[in-house]
């Protein structure tokens, strides 16, 4: 039933992942801490298209020399990113082996949920760095400045996962043995959480940069706060529908498993609160006088998301209690 050897290998891979991500975190921090010369934003050069000069458009010539900052910093950033990519590959191996060891999707308890969330987050980060356009970032910006935050968050997820939530590889309780909805509901919840986490990282960067800009000393290793705002909004605009879908898929499953699509179970309430707070963020972002406050609402939303996973699962008993340890 349970392949102990694979489960053991998966654990080893998790430990290795943590070491690698820690080194990656140090490298990114060194990059951020080095400060140094301001990174030159590419000049606003009109771009020719069909004989028409377009202001603000990007072309390959605009991106060529962006990383042309002083060499040591670039090296740290490069090492950090290479380590993050390696860590992501290791984590992917850990998650896949965990799944194979029990022959089911690897998100059946808190430990596995945390592991997979960290993997999706790390993979999104690596992917968004390799393909900035997907993250809604102009081509001449990369995500490496978020590296410190993302590797930090990955470690903050993996730490308690290993220390507090570790659960032996095993089969699931009957309520979770619904292959289709376990695969859909929980996986979308994980993906959405990971994108919310990425959005949170960008929002924190935005708030720090906005403060620095207010003092007239914008941080050179971060893009302008307006650009960070755009990226954060885009990430939230992707994860919010995913979260809504998570809640609705959960309701459909609840109808099947418990006979009622909405039970006001603590987990459902928590997810509902997360939904409401992020809805408020999106509204605030679209409302003139509230735009400056919007990032703070996003931060509150993420705090709720984290509480919904940790506090609600571990302290409040409800129908989702099996989602806790065990």
């Amino acid at each position, binding site marked *: 039933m349970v392949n102990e050897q694979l489960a053991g290998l998966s654990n080893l891979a998790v430990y290795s992942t943590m070491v690698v991500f820690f080194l990656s975190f140090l490298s990114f921090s060194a990059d951020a801490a080095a400060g140094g010369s301001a990174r030159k934003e590419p000049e606003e050069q009109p771009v020719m298209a069909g004989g028409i000069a377009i202001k603000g*458009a990007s072309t390959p010539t605009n991106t060529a020399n962006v990383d042309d900052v002083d060499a040591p910093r670039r090296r740290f950033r490069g090492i950090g990113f290479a380590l993050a990519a390696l860590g992501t590959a290791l984590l992917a191996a850990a998650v896949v082996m965990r799944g194979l060891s029990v022959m089911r999707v690897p998100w059946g308890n808190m430990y596995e949920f945390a592991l997979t969330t960290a993997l999706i987050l790390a993979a999104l980060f690596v992917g968004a760095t390799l393909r900035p356009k997907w993250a809604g970032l102009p081509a001449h910006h990369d995500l490496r400045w978020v590296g410190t935050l993302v590797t930090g968050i990955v470690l903050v997820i993996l730490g308690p996962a290993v220390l507090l939530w570790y659960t032996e590889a095993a089969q699931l309780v009957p309520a979770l043995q619904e292959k289709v909805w376990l695969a859909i509901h929980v996986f979308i919840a994980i993906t959405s959480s990971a994108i919310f986490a990425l959005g949170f990282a960008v929002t924190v960067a935005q708030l720090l940069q906005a403060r620095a800009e207010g003092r007239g000393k914008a941080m050179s290793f971060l893009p302008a706060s307006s650009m960070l705002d755009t990226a954060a909004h885009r990430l939230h605009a992707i994860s919010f529908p995913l979260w809504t879908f998570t809640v609705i898929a959960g309701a459909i499953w609840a109808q099947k498993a418990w006979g009622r699509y909405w039970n006001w179970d603590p987990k459902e309430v928590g997810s509902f609160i997360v939904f409401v707070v992020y809805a408020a963020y999106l509204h605030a972002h679209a409302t003139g006088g509230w735009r400056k406050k919007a990032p703070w609402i996003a931060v509150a939303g993420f705090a709720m998301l984290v509480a919904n996973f940790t506090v609600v699962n571990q302290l409040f*008993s*409800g129908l989702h209690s099996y989602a806790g340890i065990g």
Partner: protein
Amino acid sequence: MSDDAISLGAVGWARWMWRQLTSMRTALFLLLLLAIAAIPGAALPQRSIDPGAVAVFIADQGSVGRAMDAVGLFEVYRSPWFSAIYLLLFVSLIGCIVPRVRVYAGSLRRPPAATPKYLTRLPISGQGESESSPEAVLDGAEAALKKAGYRTVRSGDSVAGEKGYLREAGNLTFHCALVGVLVSVAVSHQYGYSGQALVPVGDTFTHSAGTYDVFRPGAAVNSEKLPPFAVTLKSFDVAFEENAGGAQLGQPRDFDADVDVTDASGAKSTQKLRVNEPVSVDGADVFLAGNGYAPRVTIKDAQDKVTYSGTVPFIAQDGMYTSSGVIKVPDHTATQLGIQAVFLPTAVQGKDSLVSVFPDARMPELVIAAYTGDLGLDRGVPQSVFRLDMRRLEPVLEFDEEHGKDLPFRARMRPGASAQLPDNLGTVTFDGFTRYAALSVRHDPGKLPALVFGVLLVAGLIGSLLVRRRRVWFRATPSASGAIVECAALSDSTDPHLADHLAMLSQAAVPQPVAATPEGVPHG
């Protein structure tokens, strides 16, 4: 207060209040308030989920607990303040979407917005020259816009294009679907019913309001006219985790019931009933909501006359199925007898007491205590079948040699064993045990509409957040070499690639550019 304010009058004030309520600021405030108001419902025990936990909490907290109860903190989602917030929010929402639907319907009929006079003043804009005639440039621009999915309109020296109408449609769909979900929930509440019954293996549950252990009908449900179907629990198999250690040991792995279902028309069928696999009959769904042990007990008086014999469902208290239950014997000798019992499926002597270490019945034992006096059954107040009303009961005592005094009577029994009650009260026999299934029955006419609105909700949201509404204009005026071309683009959302998009359109629109100067900005 100024004269203006006074002169508003009643209608003016009403309009002012309405405008305040439907303003985005109020909606935002209500949204955040709703989030905060929902928190106590997750943090505190709620009656709708666990009435027992609420009672314990109130008892522990004393007057603070009672005060919390008075303001509805244990029934948050039915409390007036929570209802007030969400009802205001929905009124605000409706007040917001109704005018928007009207505006949107109008915008669908109107052609794209006319070309602004000074295109190059817009942040995303450009200008250049073409060797083609203005007509050819505009033809090219219109074709490029059409190809990119724009609605276009030509007027004079310019062409205007607009796309992304699905954005607002999605937004409105999302908000209307929210109202739809609320209405569906209300329908479930009014016209639905639900109930629970504990059915031991071999027993039949006949559907009617009276046979439920708990029955919750909606306000518009006629409890006399429930469909008379019947469910017989033929067999019930369980499996628990035996291999993995730690918290996983003893976790349930499989609950599997075979049931005979007889519907209202008398048609009979045998079906599987499992968690996640409910059985549908006569518009109701039957769910396997829980399970437990039901010991079979026979009680005789001192004259060997049977005063009680039956199968009693016990309620599991923990993951190892340490189960508790009571037996009430109103006609036992001169006094009434109450038995309080704990069933341990795999009993092991712990430090202080007997504990169950595994949920399956490997070493079952029944531990009983006895009480005599008045069970309180005749007081006309409905009583829990899972608890003894201790107010007029005395524990049966027994002399304890070790302590040298009378202590409450306790007896441990394996299946088949009997225990002699002190004071010539007779015997209790633990004949054996069976399992029971907790069946949850629900009729919910609101669930299908709720599902439909839920799907619309997500679909609308995706359109609203991921579709971009873009407007693009091209203007071409004659020049010596061909045409001077101006273009611009606007978006009503964050749109980092708008300039690239405009560049792409320009490329497609203007086939024969004048050779560009190195600076890239030809002089018009």
